[in-house]
């Protein structure tokens, strides 16, 4: 293992440019962070019935999540025990009674047990036989199911899931509680957007409240002007302006929305307010929420408006618009960002339409918001390729955090605290496993 001098990589108010550009550090991150931490895998609604499966990734490892006969979900390595071929294709999903390898026809049950080996007489003198434990598909042992969201980790040991989730529990709860039935469902397609940049830029940017009014000015300012003129002639256009215009809100607005960070690099941007808090509430939705929770609880659920929430190092979610993004590092300077959409079970159609419209405008690779963020990451990647200056600054609002009622550290929205907090976690993972 190569030697890393962590004092020269992460300091209290700055980090080295090498964290984003050094291929050896990237390889170490895959082992020490993605190989150790709880990672987001998927949602149980992707595999509603026994025999339903969906291909997924755990770090860079191909896995399958599959619903068992008894109803539980199992994660198994997507790799035949014979020659190692992937059993199901990347990003595939469907329904099976068994997994049959497309190379030599070995067949496995839903739980991974070896069921059939063609021409098995040839293995008479070896351990290969039906039901042999050592040739069962390898399961992932550490799996956590939290309110429908599935997380797993490759390494055993380390904090249990609830400890790792910590105060972010309330943010994830808010995602689900916004359903009048306390249940969400994956629907509406997935977008996979290739970014030519290191994975960490996305996590910083998503909690960076100082960039929207600069990077998104050209989309947002004209939208503000149109909104001011009440230029929208239909409901969809009015809703679109309500989505785009708040990106160019003043610094004070973003400061006041607040941020918080927790152990393991997690954090939220926004709380009582966010760029989503001005959205009109559909009266039908409000009635459904009141019927389920009562007026006081319904109001308190909708009053929480966390712009972006990060579960480091794979997941970003937006509870107010019911979507989440999965970060899949491909190389030191290449990352795929997936966007998944959720239906709030029991909510009127307008809520799901809002989720879909938001994503089509803001998250799409052909939108008027996403490509500007992407270009910022690309220029960060090339700017940090210069070995002139060595440091990336993270010094805004130091030591201003205070502990909130859930044990997270809270401070002003435009603080760099959430970034410092990500790199404190980064260092802890990287040093612990060194």
């Amino acid at each position, binding site marked *: 293992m190569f030697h890393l001098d962590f004092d020269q990589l992460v300091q209290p108010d700055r980090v080295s440019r090498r964290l984003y550009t050094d291929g050896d550090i990237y390889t170490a991150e895959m082992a020490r962070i993605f190989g150790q931490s709880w990672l987001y895998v998927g949602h149980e609604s992707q595999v509603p019935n026994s025999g339903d499966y969906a291909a997924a990734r755990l770090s860079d490892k191909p896995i399958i999540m599959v619903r068992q006969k008894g109803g539980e979900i199992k994660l198994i390595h997507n790799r035949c025990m014979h020659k190692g071929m992937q059993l199901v294709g990347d990003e595939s999903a469907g329904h099976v009674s068994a997994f049959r390898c497309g190379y030599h026809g070995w067949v496995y049950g839903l739980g991974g047990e070896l069921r059939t080996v063609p021409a098995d007489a040839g293995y008479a003198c070896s351990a290969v036989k039906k039901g042999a434990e050592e040739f069962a598909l390898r399961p992932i042992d550490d799996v956590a199911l939290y309110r429908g969201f599935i997380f797993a980790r490759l390494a055993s040991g380390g904090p249990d899931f609830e400890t790792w989730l910590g105060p972010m529990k309330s943010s994830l709860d808010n995602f689900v509680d916004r359903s009048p039935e306390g249940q969400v469902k994956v*629907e*509406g*397609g*997935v*977008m*996979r*957007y*290739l970014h030519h940049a290191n994975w960490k830029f996305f996590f910083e940017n998503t909690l960076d409240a100082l960039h929207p009014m600069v*990077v998104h*000015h*050209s*989309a947002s300012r*004209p*939208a503000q002007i*149109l909104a001011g003129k009440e*230029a*929208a*002639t*239909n409901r*969809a*256009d009015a809703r*679109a*302006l309500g989505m*785009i215009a708040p990106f160019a809100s003043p610094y004070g607005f973003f400061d006041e929305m607040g941020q918080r960070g927790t152990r393991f690099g997690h954090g939220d941007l926004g709380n009582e307010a966010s760029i989503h808090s001005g959205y009109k509430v559909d009266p039908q939705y409000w009635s459904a929420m009141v019927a389920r929770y009562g007026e006081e609880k319904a109001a308190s659920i909708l009053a929480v408006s966390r712009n972006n929430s990060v579960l480091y190092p794979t997941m970003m979610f937006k509870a107010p618009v019911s979507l989440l993004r999965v970060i899949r590092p491909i190389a030191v300077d290449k990352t*795929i960002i997936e*966007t998944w*959409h959720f239906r709030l079970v029991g909510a009127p*159609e307008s809520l*799901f*339409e809002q989720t*879909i*419209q938001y*994503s*089509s*405008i803001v*998250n*799409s*690779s*052909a*939108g*008027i918001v*996403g*490509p*500007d963020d*992407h*270009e*910022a990451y690309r*220029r960060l990647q090339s700017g940090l390729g210069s070995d002139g200056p060595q440091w990336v600054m993270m010094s805004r609002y130091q030591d201003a955090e205070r502990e909130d009622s859930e044990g997270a550290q809270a401070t002003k929205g435009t603080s760099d605290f959430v970034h410092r907090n990500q790199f404190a976690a980064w260092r802890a993972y990287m040093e612990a496993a060194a």
Partner: protein
Amino acid sequence: MSVESDIRAFIAHEAHLLDGCQWDEWQALFTPDGMYWVPASPEQTSPHSHVSLMYESAMLRTLRIDRLKKRDGLSVEGPLRTVHHVSNIVVDANEDGGPSARAMVLYVEYVRGETRTFHGHATWHFKHGSQRDLKLHLKRVDLVNADGVSSDMLSFI
């Protein structure tokens, strides 16, 4: 002139307008409620219950066009050059009997040293304007890799 030759001329003209960065003139080809749609999945039936790469009304197209005209925004800085190839045009009628057309499209977008290509099938749904002229009610482009890993697209196919 037949409707068929009008449609062929319309489609050729549309491609020239886009490649010539004459976006205001391109906008004028649409009915006021005309939509531009690039689905994010093959055979997608709805832009409301399934995400799209683009689903833009006149107002949203105007926001995009303003950025392109002013080159305002990190992703649209610098020269943007495009080529729209359209081939195998078939003229027929859409569900409500209005004229429509479909064709194969190859779109090339060049910006800041990078050339990106997009392939797909396009569909045009027309309505007749007040002068019996053709107006675009819906332009839909189904990319061959609509649900694949996507890269930035800045202008209109």
